């Protein structure tokens, strides 16, 4: 598609439950990025993919967070055993190249941990 599509828009989970977020990048874009926005205005990089391969995972809290981009499927970000501090808006972005090109963002998934 012409836009990055993220689902669901809002996800509510109890502490300790699993959360799974999805992202369909713009068709033809090889790079996918996940960011976490906490405290309304701080964006934190989590992970990036080049097609189905992890490109940079330096921002991922590896204990509970995992992500995949499989062929012919939306990319996913999964959080096991969620904690209150995971409450945030998670944005996915895609781009043609990994640098010197704008990343195009979806509208995010708001994750609320109760």
């Amino acid at each position: 598609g012409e836009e990055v599509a993220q689902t669901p828009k809002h996800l509510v989970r109890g502490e300790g439950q699993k959360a799974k977020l999805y992202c369909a990048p713009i068709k033809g874009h090889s790079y996918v990025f996940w960011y976490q926005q906490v405290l309304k205005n701080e964006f934190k990089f989590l992970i990036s993919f080049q097609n189905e391969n992890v490109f940079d995972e330096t921002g991922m809290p590896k204990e509970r967070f995992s992500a995949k981009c499989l062929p012919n499927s939306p990319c996913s970000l999964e959080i096991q055993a969620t904690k209150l501090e995971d409450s945030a808006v998670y944005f996915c972005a895609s781009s043609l190249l990994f640098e010197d090109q704008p990343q195009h963002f979806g509208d995010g998934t708001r994750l609320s941990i109760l």
Partner: protein
Amino acid sequence: DQQVKQNSPSLSVQEGRISILNCDYTNSMFDYFLWYKKYPAEGPTFLISISSIKDKNEDGRFTVFLNKSAKHLSLHIVPSQPGDSAVYFCAAFGSSNTGKLIFGQGTTLQVKP
């Protein structure tokens, strides 16, 4: 360690006047900068970018200026319109060469009719 900083949390201007949003960075390895605009409950929308080989880039009402020696960039919007009211984020590609964007904290612009 905040490598990209937007020191003004908010800015209010009158419709038709110029809006100037500022951004500072600390890492001299950054060589490509972007401005995004964000409305509530939406994702950031790309506005304009600049490479470090330039000092100015213009697109309609939006102009970005880059001062490499001062590690400073600014976004000028002229004339400002009420629809420009949003949060503006400055971002730079990190020095890891992996496409990771480093964002500033954002500046909320309010354009008054």
